[in-house]
């Protein structure tokens, strides 16, 4: 312990303070802590147990508070803000139901390693455990869905906890941190002791991987003939995208990304194989299956990527780069594991390859993959999967959107068929520009995430691609977008059904359709108008371009575009869950 400030109490004060501390209430400390972290935007919803904080926020004009319409919306907005910017997103809710409404948002952020700090009010310390009004043990609830969490018991601890929370959220493998503050702790006064240093003896931030591991990786690459780089969300979280870009261009190693890794490398670059896994193109999965070396970077061998684990990349030696050592050997055992920051790792690799007199030549291997690509491309764009040009093809909508929105546009998605079509066809070229709930698969993520992105990047196009099922799980946030005149586009691919569930029932449950009918959807155009947004119905292929152009040019408020697509439309290829990626159903086998 620091001899000047010996830790005499289990709660700290493990802090070093410079000048004479200012006396303030706990709520004021919360606001001061946010200011000290450079926070200028928070998303939240007030209630009884968080009212002192909401009172203090009025005195801090530097912090813009966005009143949402549901706490889940606040958590996804903070998440979208964080994923697009790389900065910590902040959301605030009250105790009890306010806090439990954040749970899905925290779990979403945790699965996708997104840095957010969630602040919740709690009943006064004396009432904790008494089943008081609006009491919920959100601290206990948070254990498995956050990177870390705090229940603050003393006002004096607030600045230290906030400093730790923001540090933990944004460093290493990022993740959500919850801070639960009882109402009496917010009201009591104490000295504001902002720490200059924090003590987290159990917390390590990974640096560069060891030279031995890097040398082993380089040796494995040099001795391989058919390498594939498999890049996940870690590459985006660590801002390694540009370095990986250089590495790929230098070495000529073909690269596939996971859903979370989309944008880490330009989708239509000649070395890009697009997304792999359950809905990866046949040639992409074939390349992974035939590879003799798989270089995994910031990816965690998720079941949607690997299919049946023991058949995944079965001919390949595996190198696994990850910031989180617990990801090594969790799902797949790698031959070479390297723990460390991905950006530093690829900088070091790049340095080693640049120093080489002659580089390995993988052009033959790329040509082989190219020939598979010519035999098994993704299904044709313009037609729907029935081969007709009279109906709007969801693939065509995504492609047209990519063309019109441009490379600076941010895409968010909900979950289901539209998400996979977006992942397959959107020409995403930049890291942090494709924002989707990959791990948890949270329907209702897209609209609030898009709002969070738009607050951070008001001058860039922000489009939420959604489905008629997903959009109704947080459609209330349309109000938030209208109130703040956010020019976001919500493209609903409306097939009047829970399309992905329907597709599984079609293919794997003997066409016994259960609980998937959404033909009783509201009129989304009228709904948009009722919220004060613009709405447009798009029923024919030739209307797609004009509708998208009009929506993208609207800057003073959100637009809902409802694209009517066939209910029977399917996402292909598809690997049946739990089967080998070699067993992909490539052709359209829906009715």
């Amino acid at each position, binding site marked *: 312990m620091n001899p000047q400030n010996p830790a005499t109490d289990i709660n700290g004060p493990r802090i070093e303070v410079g000048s004479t501390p200012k006396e303030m209430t706990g709520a004021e400390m919360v606001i001061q802590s946010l200011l000290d972290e450079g926070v200028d935007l928070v998303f939240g919803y007030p209630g009884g147990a968080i009212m002192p904080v909401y009172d203090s926020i009025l005195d801090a004009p530097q912090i813009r508070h966005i009143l949402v319409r549901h706490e889940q919306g606040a958590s996804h907005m903070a998440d979208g803000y964080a994923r697009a910017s790389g900065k910590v997103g902040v959301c605030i809710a009250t105790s009890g139901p306010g806090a439990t409404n954040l749970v899905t948002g925290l779990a979403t952020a945790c699965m996708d390693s997104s840095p957010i700090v969630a602040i919740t009010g709690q009943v006064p310390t004396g009432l904790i455990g008494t089943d008081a009004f609006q009491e919920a043990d959100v601290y206990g609830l948070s254990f498995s869905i956050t990177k870390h969490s705090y229940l603050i018991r003393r006002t004096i601890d607030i600045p230290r906890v906030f400093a730790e929370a923001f540090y933990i959220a944004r460093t290493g493998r990022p993740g959500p941190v919850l801070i639960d503050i009882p109402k009496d702790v917010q009201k009591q006064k104490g000295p504001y002791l902002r720490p200059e240093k*924090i*003590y*987290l003896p159990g917390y390590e931030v990974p640096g560069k991987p060891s030279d031995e591991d890097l040398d082993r990786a380089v040796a494995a690459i040099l001795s391989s003939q058919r390498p594939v780089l498999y890049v996940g969300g870690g590459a985006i979280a660590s801002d390694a995208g540009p370095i990986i870009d250089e590495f790929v261009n230098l070495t000529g190693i073909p690269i596939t990304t996971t859903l979370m890794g989309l944008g880490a490398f330009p989708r239509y670059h000649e070395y890009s194989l697009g997304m792999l896994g359950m809905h990866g193109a046949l040639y992409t999965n074939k390349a992974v299956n035939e590879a003799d070396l798989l270089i995994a970077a910031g990816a965690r061998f998720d079941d949607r990527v690997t299919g049946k684990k023991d058949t995944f990349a079965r001919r390949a030696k595996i190198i696994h780069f990850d910031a989180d050592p617990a990801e090594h050997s969790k799902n797949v055992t790698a031959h070479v594991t390297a723990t460390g920051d991905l950006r530093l790792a690829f900088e070091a690799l790049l340095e080693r390859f640049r120093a080489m007199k002659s580089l390995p030549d993988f052009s033959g291997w790329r040509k082989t993959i190219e020939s598979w690509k010519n035999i098994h491309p993704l299904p044709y764009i313009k037609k729907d999967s029935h081969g007709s040009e009279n109906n709007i093809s969801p693939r065509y909508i995504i492609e047209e959107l990519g063309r019109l929105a441009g490379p600076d546009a941010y895409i968010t998605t909900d979950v289901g068929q539209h998400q996979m079509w977006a992942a397959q066809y959107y020409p995403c070229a930049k890291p942090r520009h494709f924002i989707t709930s990959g791990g948890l698969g949270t329907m209702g993520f897209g609209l609030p995430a898009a709002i969070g992105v738009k607050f951070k990047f008001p001058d860039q196009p922000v489009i939420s691609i959604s489905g008629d099922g997903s959009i109704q799980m947080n459609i209330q946030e349309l109000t938030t977008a209208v109130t703040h005149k956010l020019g976001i586009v919500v493209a609903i691919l409306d097939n009047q059904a829970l399309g992905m569930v329907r597709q599984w029932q079609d293919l794997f449950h003997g066409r016994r359709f259960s609980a998937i009918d959404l033909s009783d959807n509201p009129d989304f155009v009228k709904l948009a108008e009722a919220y004060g947004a613009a709405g447009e119905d798009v029923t024919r292929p030739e209307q797609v371009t004009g509708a998208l152009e009009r929506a993208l040019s609207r800057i003073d408020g959100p637009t809902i575009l409802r694209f009517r697509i066939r209910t029977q439309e399917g996402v292909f290829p598809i690997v049946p869950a739990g089967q080998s990626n070699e067993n992909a159903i490539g052709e359209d086998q829906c009715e």
Partner: protein
Amino acid sequence: MRMTTISMLTENRPGVLARVCHLFSRRGFNLLSVCAERTDRFEVYCITVVVRCDDDRTLEQICKQLRKLVDVEEVTILSNAPTIERQVALIKVGVEEGRRDALVEESSHFSAKVVDLSPKCAIFELVSDEFRIESFLKFLEPYRVIEVVRSGKIGLFRGERHSFANLKQSNPVAIPLPAGSLAAGERKTY
């Protein structure tokens, strides 16, 4: 069925034991026993768990996931080397006047101590490894065993070897705190 004893040093902060135990259910690991108490340093807590785990990869995952918890400083597998492992058992046995002396006499072979005596009952305390406790319980089978309570395990490596590298480290490294997105000196005030 393989049992492994894992010992960890954690920060002595509220909720740390709950968090550690929660991890086992969250990740589907099999937790058999838990024993936790402060160490010689007030701010450091030692939690020892016994897990059932039949393969090395899962065991590695358990240790890594534990280590990943922010409050957990160090994790060590005690079962990998010669150790002293101890647990406490308290056993209440009903015994009539006439047989009591013989029972107490024989129990001393197990190093079991009588810690309470009443006309019809005796409470034995046995501090030992699980094997001796098991065999003592086996020995007591002919008697009327009324209640048995056992603690979790604690342990240390034998000899010079430290179970934890940093057990005696008294000055953890401080992380200089970056001042958010604000440049130093231009911190906004409330």
